[in-house]
């Protein structure tokens, strides 16, 4: 079947007015504003490792500004030479010179022609720009193109571009190896025009992902025959040219903000359907509707076509991949809102393209190994995570350059929830050069949130979570802050607000900002509105600041009350002195009556950060008769003492007994025993001791 271009566009536009259900893919639900429309023709030159393409872009000015230029991302120039911001930052952080591309392996993109639809040439005026400051001088990933006349509010401009690109051999997210390709960030792409502020169009940074406007895409990909292709959106046409031995595949999708594709002759292509009625029971709908205070109809999930492209070596893991994707479709859908697109394409990354674990609208890459450990939840974790970006990045189009936590933090938190719900705790896996060693050892079981806390809290004092991606102290600080620390913050918020309220917050944020570009403040506002609580103190300290949070119990003593107090007392008009002998005597006389103990507990705030005024801390004190006393502390001062008079001594005291404050950097000091108990210490010492003995034994074997 051959489809005329105009016909395809007509179909696409019909969908815009009619909703979904037709040949071309448009999302369910109310249609968003989309300032962009792309039609791209691209051909893969397998021999030269080149792409040759042309592109028609229509950009609509949806602001009240007059816009005199257009800024384009030319992302692949990040891999062009060592002067790119990408390689400069990588060299400064992690990359050894030996890891730079070798001869012929650099990548780049050239614009050979850029003109308005009426033919006026824009090439003479175009120039590279460095909007991220002088430290990115020499970078060629941002191109500024002045327009002959400004685009008025509501006006449109149509550009015709021809480009030629060299595919990088080894680079971030995109690469080729032999005749396997993953192609992302590949076409000239306008930034996001922000009213009153101008073009938001950052360089390709080492630590940063992307930001783009919503668009309708129609992309014609020409590859040599025999390649198996996967792409964003829905396949709407496939035409073979027997003379040139090529095949042209056309993909269309409305309301997405990026488009990626992959081609590899060895891929197995498997398609299955997510059938909501098979995956979600009526009882599950009803239970969630009750918890969220909405109707079951609001929650109903649509069916989705799932497409898997997988290496034949991983054939035995096909079911494992689909099971994880179904779990993701189910829980993201139920909790945060239905997945609105018709298709989702899951790509087992082409061998040695380094493209695993990356998200694109309606397409993502997973990543597995030959011998995945049972219960290690890999590849499950990466599948759930990258699918989840379809929500946090894909549908809610936050700015990954400037506020990466809005996609990575929300999504790391969400991933942990889905994995815990669908799979439970996972084990750590241990491999030596592909050999699974974990069959021999009992590896620790853990939930994502535990690992997130251990990593995330290590960088609290380095940077606020809200920091531009390329301005973090280090790559480590970037990664741990925006992924793990942000997820730990959200996990704590969930424990403070309750799980149901937290789901409502995220659902309101997802549904309220679909196809839009919210900022951190929008998230804070949504959380406050939905929960009905003032959370400024929370986000102020944990999102925008670098304060350590640590409360603890610092002292616990129980002392028997003396039978009488020593000293001189005025009794019946005369001085009566109580001596130690008198006390002993009184004690002797009352020896049958019950003893009394005074227990004193001191709690402290070790960190700078404080709990909010409406969120006091709970103190639990357990006594030897089994009773437990509970007190609250507002936690505003540096310390507080609590006193109890009881007939028995205290056994232990514990602050925050429900462990709501996962952000607490020291949970060990949250409790104190009256008498130490070392059984656990001996157990773990015994274990570590064995490993130290093993290391000694191995070292001894060398001499």
């Amino acid at each position, binding site marked *: 079947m051959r489809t005329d271009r105009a016909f395809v566009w007509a179909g696409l536009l019909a969908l815009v007015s009619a909703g979904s259900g037709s040949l071309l893919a448009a999302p369910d639900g109310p249609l968003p504003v989309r300032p962009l429309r792309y039609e791209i023709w691209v051909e893969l030159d397998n021999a030269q490792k080149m792409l040759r393409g042309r592109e028609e872009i229509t950009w609509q000015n949806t602001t009240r500004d007059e816009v005199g230029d257009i800024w384009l991302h030319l992302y692949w120039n990040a891999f062009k030479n060592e002067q790119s911001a990408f390689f400069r930052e990588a060299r400064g952080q992690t990359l050894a010179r030996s890891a730079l591309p070798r001869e012929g392996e650099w990548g780049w993109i050239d614009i050979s022609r850029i003109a308005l639809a009426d033919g006026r040439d824009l090439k003479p005026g175009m120039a590279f720009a460095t909007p991220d400051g002088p430290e990115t001088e020499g970078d060629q990933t941002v191109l500024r193109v002045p327009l002959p006349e400004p685009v008025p509010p509501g006006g449109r401009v149509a550009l015709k571009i021809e480009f030629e690109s060299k595919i990088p051999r080894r680079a971030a997210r995109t690469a080729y190896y032999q005749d396997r390709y993953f192609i992302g960030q590949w076409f000239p792409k306008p930034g996001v025009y922000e009213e009153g502020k101008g073009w938001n169009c950052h360089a390709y940074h080492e630590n940063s992902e992307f930001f783009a406007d919503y668009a309708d895409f129609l992309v014609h990909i020409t590859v040599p025959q025999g390649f198996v292709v996967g792409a964003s959106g829905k396949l709407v046409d496939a035409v073979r040219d027997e003379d040139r031995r090529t095949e042209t595949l056309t993909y269309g999708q409305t309301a997405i903000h990026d488009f990626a594709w992959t081609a590899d002759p*060895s891929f197995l292509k498997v398609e299955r359907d997510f059938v909501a009625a098979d995956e979600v029971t009526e009882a599950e709908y009803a239970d969630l509707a009750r918890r969220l205070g909405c109707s079951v109809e609001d929650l109903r999930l649509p069916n989705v076509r799932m497409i898997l492209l997988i*290496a*034949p*070596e*991983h054939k035995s893991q096909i079911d494992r991949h689909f099971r994880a994707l179904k779990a993701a479709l189910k829980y993201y859908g139920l909790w945060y809102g239905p997945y609105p697109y018709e298709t989702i394409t899951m790509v087992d990354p082409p*061998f040695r393209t380094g493209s695993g674990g990356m998200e694109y609208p309606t397409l993502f890459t997973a990543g597995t*190994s*030959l011998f995945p450990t049972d219960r290690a939840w890999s590849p499950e974790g990466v599948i759930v995570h990258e699918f989840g970006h379809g929500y946090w990045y894909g549908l809610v189009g936050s700015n990954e350059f400037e506020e990466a936590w809005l996609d990575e933090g929300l999504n790391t938190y969400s991933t942990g929830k889905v994995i815990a719900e669908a799979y439970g705790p996972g084990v750590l896996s241990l491999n030596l*050069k*592909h*050999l699974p060693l974990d069959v*021999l*050892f*009992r590896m*620790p*079981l*853990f939930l994502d949130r*535990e*690992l997130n*806390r*251990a990593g995330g*809290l*290590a960088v609290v004092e380095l940077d606020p979570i809200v920091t531009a991606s390329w301005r973090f102290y280090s790559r480590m600080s970037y990664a741990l802050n925006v992924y793990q620390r942000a997820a730990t913050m959200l996990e704590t918020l969930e424990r403070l607000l309750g799980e149901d309220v937290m789901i409502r917050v995220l659902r309101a944020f997802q549904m309220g900002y679909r196809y839009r570009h919210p900022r951190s403040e929008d998230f804070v506002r949504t959380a406050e509105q939905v929960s009905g609580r003032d959370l400024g103190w929370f986000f102020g300290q944990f999102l925008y600041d670098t304060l350590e949070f640590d409360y603890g119990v610092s002292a616990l003593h129980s002392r028997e009350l003396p039978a009488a107090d020593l000293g001189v007392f005025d009794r019946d008009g005369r001085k009566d002195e109580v001596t130690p002998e008198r006390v002993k005597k009184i004690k002797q006389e009352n020896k049958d009556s019950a003893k009394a103990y005074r227990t004193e507990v001191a709690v402290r705030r070790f960190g700078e950060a404080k709990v909010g005024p409406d969120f006091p801390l709970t103190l639990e004190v357990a006594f030897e008769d089994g009773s437990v006393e509970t007190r609250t502390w507002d936690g505003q001062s540096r310390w507080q003492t609590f006193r109890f008079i009881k007939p028995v001594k205290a056994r*232990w005291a*514990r602050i925050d007994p429900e462990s709501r404050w996962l952000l607490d*950097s*020291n*949970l*060990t*000091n*949250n*409790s*104190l*025993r009256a008498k*130490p*108990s*070392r*059984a*656990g*210490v*001996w*157990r*773990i*010492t*015994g*274990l*570590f*001791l*064995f490993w*130290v*003995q*093993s*290391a*000694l*034994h191995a*070292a*001894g*074997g*060398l*001499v």
Partner: protein
Amino acid sequence: MSILRAFQQGLATTRRRSRLILYLWLANLFFGVLVLGPFIYLAGRDFGSSLEGDRLLQGVDFIWLGDVILNQGDALAGLAGWALIPFSLYLVWSIFSSGGILGRIAAEEEKTTLAAFVSDGCQYFFRFFRVPLIAIPVYVIVFGLLYKLLNLPLAAWSRTAGGPWGDFWASTLGVLVFLALFSLVRILFDYARIRLVVDRSRKAFRAVVMTFGFLGGRLVPAWALYLLIAAVSVVVLALFLLVSRLLTGASGAMVLVVWLQVLAAVRQGIRILFLASESHYYKGSQL
């Protein structure tokens, strides 16, 4: 001499000299405690008085481990520095104990007393001390040069691998090549030490050179003997570890600690078994 017979005689000698296992295990334990001393103190201080200490009974988890990483990072770094001292001392002990073990294996009389072991250790210490010094250039040549050379075709193959299996086999073969070379170096220096004891020689360098001659004609059986014992020990080790996987929870905690110490002792027995079997093979082949 047949390698099976050497192995059997080695087993018998190990049984006869089983008291050596006690000495070796105790020393191994002692140095282990020395390395972990500061850790035991810190863990006792922090977790002993905390309810979180109960988590330690369940094994490793990322809540308490997270606390250790977050709050004892500097202490852990200091601990690593401190560990260098007991580790260095343990190397000296290993040289000493090799003399003790080989001396007792070679001794005709039945006694396996601490005094005899120490006296053997002292007697052979200085010539054994020279063996690892000679070994350093051998390690450099074998792993810095030979291993890299042998790996070149594997690396070239791996670079052009068409998929994960090619990658897997290239790296697995690389591991095998490494293990093969490592076992050959071990055999060389094991027999050099045996020669120093059995032939009552004092010249370590000469012993190493002569061992080349000895192994020249018997490399295959000597290597086979080594690999046989290595295979047996890998199986024993794996069985121990698989059983230890079953010991879980608070109830299994102390059993696990004891079980791992049994394994630590068995490992010392295997060390004696290697040297004893090789000694018998050496003597058997000299006749």
